[in-house]
């Protein structure tokens, strides 16, 4: 291993091979700003990444009150010192000159600087007016997956019990709601069953619509390290692009968009037909096997091959891979979650694990992934269209219990219907029943589907929009009030990753100007609104991150996500700990369901379930008769074709997605030079076959047009499946002439100009992977390549057409292999 690596050119750094059942060794990655020597660092401040869901633990280097770099924490169970490119370089965005430093309010159509008092009084006054005139249902909150636990919990209490509105959801609706829903459908309750440690023990790792190399690059390093060690894992990759995962896979399936359920039903069919099932596990822990077997009885590989446009023989090979191994880990992400029939498909992967008995032991793990760093907290704190602590809104005793924690009457907490999901909130805003929308830490004017519609909603005069962010994002430019927020490294809070690992992220430096932590903004609002509990005391009794964390612990007590065994002191002392962490498991819990299904009992479950195809809610009485003993539920689903199929005008399927160098709408990563330059602009991926057929080539400028709108980008010819176009969704308009959207001088640039307003009826997650589009040539390329990176899934099919992506000396990062100090790794047996 070299001492340093260009981590733009080599996003995953060098290998530290290890064998199956061995402990993954540490490798400490350190990046310091140009000219900063390690000795110059005065303080290392504990934190974890907020640029993906992996939870990479790191220390922030501070010198003279400024951030000057980062170093991976070798003691942490998740990343063992490693950092991905976004972790290494993304922090530089904190110091951007265009950070918001003062509140802004709209006067005579223009946003003008003001002081906090004026801005917050305006927000509070408008809230009170609306409460008086139109009631709590006229106010909505749209938050994110990028704040801290303490902030979500505070927001939840003030929205649900203070305002009393049912309209609180996160942009986690776009990234993780299917993971939550699929777990609720199968296990009765949210909660990630598996652990990242399962990767150390797996024989087969099946990645369904999960480009882990780019979305959780550090866990990909783990798999790469294992693939170079003894007894390496075999990979199954289901992805329409030739991702890095696909290149390493034993079997790669690239199905037609929107056909996941057909493919998965065929895998289940084969598993049952060959009797590769664990009958004892099925009998002991599940209900519904007979119906599932009947429903997939006709779903042969040959049948699925027609629908998915994948050879039947490949499906049989995939089925053999997942069906015959003794240790299967499956991971699932946006290829499943943002597709047509999202929950139905994700649930079939749960089913595969249940009928094979692959649950709750090392190497037999199920990971329904998250997209964002703190999406798990949005979910557990009840800021994601659920009640806090995975309580069931349909269960009066759960609501009463929550009311007791908050010292309010149960009627104070809206629970007459499920908490409103984000897509419905935007509809209410569109038809005028929501009149105030408070958007924190997210950028819907780029990230929601069908952007022309979203812009038309956000620019309505009658809608009072508050935007709380670091920068004047596309969304902030359309707001009535803009609140400058502090971010990671400038405030303290806890965050929980996709495998339930809780980290503490501490304040390292002061925020710029008058920017404030999101928690302080919410607390300020609560004070101005004077929210009270049922005895007339303040509804919100905490005033800083640690007291908010302690309040959350009381809310989580006895729930699946029990935090009562944690404290700031403990998180400082031990680095990441997996919940539940309570008296019984003071060191945390590696895996759920090691001893049966624990939260599916009718009295305990978070949800009574939904019809996977219509989204209709089940009632308690139905749930009780289906699942009286609280077992895992095997739910079958029939394949349905997507709503939008290619036609003459729109002959391509269109999918959107990510690159390793950017996060979300690039508000941070677009301001970190190494990341910005690695993927500087939008591009369009097309297959070699389609490019040849249409006479198009690398670098040609094209318009991608759907029924909703269009975008313009340069072509990259790749190994993507024929008939499919791919566009990264990160690019918006803040760094263009027109600022917040396309204009006279700015053609469409955001992928979501083209996407459809349609969502999975069960999880309400919008469809970003199944639209159709036409492609037209605008002008021939001038010989230079498309701005797409060459290092990962967007690598050109013909090597040599593009200069390899590299960061040069500015991206040099030190990497130092070392022992993982905790030899006693949980789950290693």
């Amino acid at each position, binding site marked *: 291993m070299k001492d340093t690596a260009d981590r733009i050119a080599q996003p995953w750094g060098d290998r530290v091979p290890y064998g199956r059942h061995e402990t993954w060794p540490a490798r400490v990655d350190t990046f310091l700003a140009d000219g900063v020597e390690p000795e110059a660092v005065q303080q290392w401040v504990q934190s974890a990444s907020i640029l993906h869901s992996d939870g990479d633990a790191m220390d922030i280097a501070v010198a003279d009150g400024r951030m000057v770099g980062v170093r991976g924490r070798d003691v942490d169970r998740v990343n063992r010192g490693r950092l991905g490119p976004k972790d290494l370089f993304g922090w530089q965005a904190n110091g951007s000159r265009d950070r918001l430093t003062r509140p802004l309010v709209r006067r005579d159509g223009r946003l003008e600087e003001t002081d906090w008092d004026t801005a917050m009084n305006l927000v509070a006054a408008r809230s009170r007016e609306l409460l008086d005139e*139109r009631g709590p249902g006229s106010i909505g909150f749209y938050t994110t997956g990028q704040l801290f636990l303490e902030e979500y919990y505070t927001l939840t209490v003030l929205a649900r019990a203070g305002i009393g509105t049912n309209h609180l959801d996160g942009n986690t609706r776009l990234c993780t709601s299917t993971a939550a829903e699929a777990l609720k459908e199968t296990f009765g309750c949210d909660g990630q069953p598996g652990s990242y440690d399962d990767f150390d023990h797996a024989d087969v790792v099946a990645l369904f619509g999960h480009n882990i190399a780019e979305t959780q690059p550090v866990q990909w390093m783990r798999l790469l390290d294992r693939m170079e060690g003894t007894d390496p894992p075999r990979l199954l990759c289901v992805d329409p692009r030739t991702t890095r995962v696909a290149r390493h896979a034993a079997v790669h399936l690239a199905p037609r968009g929107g056909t996941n359920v057909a493919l998965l039903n065929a895998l289940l069919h084969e598993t049952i037909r060959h009797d590769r099932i664990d009958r004892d596990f099925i009998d002991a822990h599940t209900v519904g096997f007979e119906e599932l077997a009947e429903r997939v009885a006709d779903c042969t590989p040959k049948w699925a091959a027609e629908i998915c446009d994948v050879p039947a023989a490949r499906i049989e090979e995939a089925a053999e891979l997942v069906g015959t191994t003794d240790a299967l880990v499956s991971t699932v992400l946006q290829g499943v979650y943002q597709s047509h029939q999202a929950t139905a498909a994700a649930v079939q992967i749960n089913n595969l694990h249940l009928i094979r008995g692959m649950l709750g032991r090392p190497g037999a793990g199920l990971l329904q992934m998250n997209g964002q760093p703190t999406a798990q907290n949005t979910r557990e704190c009840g800021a994601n269209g659920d009640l806090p602590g995975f309580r069931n809104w349909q269960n009066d005793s759960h609501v009463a219990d929550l009311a007791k924690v908050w010292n309010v009457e149960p009627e104070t907490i809206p629970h007459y219907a499920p908490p409103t999901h984000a897509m419905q909130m935007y509809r209410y805003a569109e*038809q005028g029943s929501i009149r105030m929308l408070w958007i924190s830490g997210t950028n819907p004017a780029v990230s929601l589907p069908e952007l022309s519609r979203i812009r038309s909603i956000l620019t309505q005069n009658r809608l009072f929009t508050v935007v709380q962010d670091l920068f004047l994002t596309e969304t902030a430019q359309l707001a009535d009030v803009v609140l400058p927020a502090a971010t990671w490294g400038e405030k303290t809070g806890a965050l929980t990753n996709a495998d339930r690992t809780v980290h503490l992220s501490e304040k390292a430096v002061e925020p710029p100007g008058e920017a404030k932590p999101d928690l302080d903004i919410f607390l300020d609002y609560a004070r101005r609104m004077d929210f009270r509990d049922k005895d007339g005391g303040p509804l919100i009794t905490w005033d800083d991150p640690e007291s908010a964390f302690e309040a959350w612990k009381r809310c989580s007590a006895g729930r699946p996500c029990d935090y009562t065994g944690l404290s700031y002191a403990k998180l400082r002392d031990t680095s990441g700990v997996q919940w539940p962490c309570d008296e019984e498991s003071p060191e945390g819990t590696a895996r759920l369901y090691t001893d049966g299904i624990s939260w599916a009992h009718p009295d305990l479950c978070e949800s009574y379930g939904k019809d996977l195809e*219509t989204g*209709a809610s089940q009632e308690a009485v139905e749930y009780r008769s289906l699942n009286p003993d609280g077992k895992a539920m095997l739910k079958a689903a029939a394949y349905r074709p997507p709503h939008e199929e290619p036609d003459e005008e729109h002959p391509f399927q269109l999918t959107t997605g990510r690159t390793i160098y950017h996060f979300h709408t690039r508000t941070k990563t677009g301001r970190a030079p190494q990341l910005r330059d690695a993927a500087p602009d939008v591009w369009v991926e097309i297959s070699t076959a389609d490019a040849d057929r249409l006479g198009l080539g690398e670098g040609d400028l094209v318009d991608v047009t759907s029924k909703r709108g269009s975008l313009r980008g340069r072509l990259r010819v790749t190994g993507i499946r024929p008939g499919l176009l791919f566009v990264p969704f990160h690019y918006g308009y803040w760094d263009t002439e027109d600022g917040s959207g396309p204009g006279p001088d700015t053609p469409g640039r955001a992928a979501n100009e083209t996407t459809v307003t349609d969502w999975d009826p069960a999880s*309400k997650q919008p469809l970003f992977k199944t639209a159709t589009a036409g492609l037209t040539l605008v002008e021939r390329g001038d010989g230079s390549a498309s701005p797409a990176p060459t290092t990962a899934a967007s690598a050109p099919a013909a090597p040599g057409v593009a200069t390899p992506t590299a960061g040069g000396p500015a991206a040099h990062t030190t990497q130092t292999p070392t022992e993982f100090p905790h030899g006693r790794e949980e789950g290693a047996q």
Partner: protein
Amino acid sequence: MNGITLTLRTLHRGERHLAHDLVSVAERHRTEHEVHHVATDLAVWSREHVRRLAEVAAHHDVRLGDPPDHSSDGVLATLRKQASEAVVHRPEPGLLLLHDLRELHIAAAENSLHWEMLAQAAQASRDSELLGLASACHPRTLRQMRWTNTMIKNLSPQILNSL
């Protein structure tokens, strides 16, 4: 005509109507995206019920027609769609939506009762084909009802409190 063929006819008519009404509601509420998409999907079930009813009825020497042709009232469909888009920023169509969902629910409930009758008659007359038909189709009718009920439950608090 015996009672079974009478019920087959009634149910055939009921499913035809429901298929048609689901599509009409989907078009009329195009800007209510979930209603639009799910109603369109649910119409497919009713159309399939119509086809299967016609097949079984033929064995009882009763000729029943095909499902309604979705594209036959293209002009009306376009009008409904445009009308929906014209009032995208108005709250009042919410009341119409609740009305339409209620009508769909009642139509599905009527079909459900007829499926129940048909299944009972099939058992009594030991007509396994008929029983198979009812067992295959009736659950979907119940799911149509659950969907309309869920949508009414979820949407009415906001719609009725914002007028």
